[in-house]
């Protein structure tokens, strides 16, 4: 049942030009970063004389691409997530889902996994692009996997938050702006509070938790943070939709 909803969401994303355009633009951006990374590598690597200054090709190129990806997703996810529930509410199609034999949890999980599935296309695409370096070099697949997992979890958190904001309003645009602002603040927290290592607030920064994945490390603490983040916002969404039924 969750799968049926996810399938419906994917279908509706590809039914409008929006989905295709976002995919195309993002692939263009990542492709550019990738090409630049490869070109710059030769310049930088030839300039580095001491061994400590040399970094591997995988790390050099991936860092640029994944760094860009986490930033670009900040714009892309709110654009896609804003319509998930707000749009249905505005066009009054929610009763269609509510009167089907589905629990609200299934509806929310379905919508969440539909969006995440769509964005996973990009994550897989990035990983495949980077893997092509293996044709003329020996690359570190572990590093790419860690980064992919990190990006996946980061995007999942974005989606969960975006879905929640989509469920609080009837206006997709309002939902989009709200989730963008919230995500932006959460991303930037460690810019302001990162200097103080004892700061608790810095721990809420999504970018800080993505940091360990970006350096090729899969840290269970960070995995747990992202999972909790996702679960929290999905639960809030379920409660919000349930309130619709209870309060009308």
């Amino acid at each position, binding site marked *: 049942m969750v799968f*049926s909803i996810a399938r419906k969401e994917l279908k509706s994303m590809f039914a409008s030009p929006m989905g295709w355009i976002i995919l195309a633009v993002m692939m263009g951006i990542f492709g550019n970063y990738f090409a630049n990374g490869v070109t710059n590598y030769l310049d930088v690597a030839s300039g580095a004389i001491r061994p400590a200054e040399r970094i591997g090709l995988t790390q050099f190129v991936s860092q640029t691409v994944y760094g860009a990806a986490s930033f670009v997703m900040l714009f892309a996810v709110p654009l896609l997530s804003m319509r998930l529930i707000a749009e249905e509410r505005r066009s009054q199609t*929610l*009763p269609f889902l509510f009167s*089907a*034999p589905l629990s609200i949890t299934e509806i929310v999980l379905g919508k969440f996994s539909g969006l995440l599935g769509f964005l996973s296309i990009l994550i897989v695409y990035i990983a495949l692009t980077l893997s092509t370096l293996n044709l003329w070099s020996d690359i570190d697949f572990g590093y790419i996997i860690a980064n992919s997992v990190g990006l996946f979890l980061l995007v999942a958190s974005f989606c969960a938050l975006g879905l929640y904001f989509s469920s609080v309003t009837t206006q997709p645009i309002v939902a989009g702006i709200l989730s963008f602002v919230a995500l932006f603040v959460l991303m930037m927290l460690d810019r302001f509070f990162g200097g103080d290592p004892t700061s608790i607030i810095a721990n809420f920064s999504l970018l800080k938790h993505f940091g360990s994945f970006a350096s090729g490390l899969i840290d269970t603490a960070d995995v747990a943070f992202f999972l909790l983040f996702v679960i929290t916002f999905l639960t809030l969404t379920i409660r919000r939709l349930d309130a619709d039924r209870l309060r*009308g």
Partner: protein
Amino acid sequence: MDNLTVEAVDLTRLYGGRAAVSDVSFHLAKGQVLGFLGPNGAGKSTTMKMLTGNLAPSAGSVKICGVDMIEHPKEAKALIGYLPEMRPLYKEFTVDEYLTIAARLHRVSGKHIKKAVEIAKARCGLSHMSKRLIENLSNGYQQRVGIAQAIIHNPMVVILDEPTVGLDPIQIRDIRALIKEIGQEHSVIVSTHILPEVEMVCDHVQIIDKGKLVFNGGIDVLKRQRIGNKLLLGFKRTPTDSALLQIPGITEVEQVDGMVRVRFAEGQAPHEAIVEAAVKEGWGLYQIAPDQTSLEDVFVQLTYQEAAAVEEKAA
């Protein structure tokens, strides 16, 4: 009784202290078509939302084929097909795509989806619209898609909120026939403003006003109330009232627009006597017909009576 499909007990819904629906109880058996009538804002849609699990009742319970909507919502919802007042259509899909999604969400098994979609389309006259985007369909066709969506999983109870709005007369006739057809095996609840429609398709009527049920009974009760014991007579040379009152059975005479309306006592049939008297006296009778109160009048009477009774009680 185990062939009850819908049981609603004391349904109440409060919106911030104001009761939109209060203490509505009724039940519906298999093979019945229930017409739901009421003025705007009477609580028809709210009741329907509660029946379909779109809105939680403040008090009371709903059982669909014995399954409680609040305790086992999934099982109960699987037995219902619902068309809300605002058609829940995803306009970016084609008719086929949309109905396939509807079938899948209503747990039609994978093998039967195609067939279910075909049947629903055929029943609603949509077969030639399969590949069209719902967005590009006319209002009436969109309504048909909405109905198709509600019957696609062959539910035990079909709930349609104003199904014939925006349809042309031929489509309305088709939809009424469809409702009757579904009503033979399953139960149907239809809400509407169009009173003759109720008479045509429903065998049970409920009138709701200000959140309260004011009438609940068979359509024949309503019809009897409607026909009454009145005759409308047309004479070329109108006789005096007293001459008419002499005919046995007639209790009241009233002149209206050049015609005469007579009321007769319950159980009497003065028709023959009237014709005989007219021939004998040479009144020139050219019309004799039962005088029907329009359903609208009955409706107004029923909703008004209730209001008057409440006022009386208060006074």
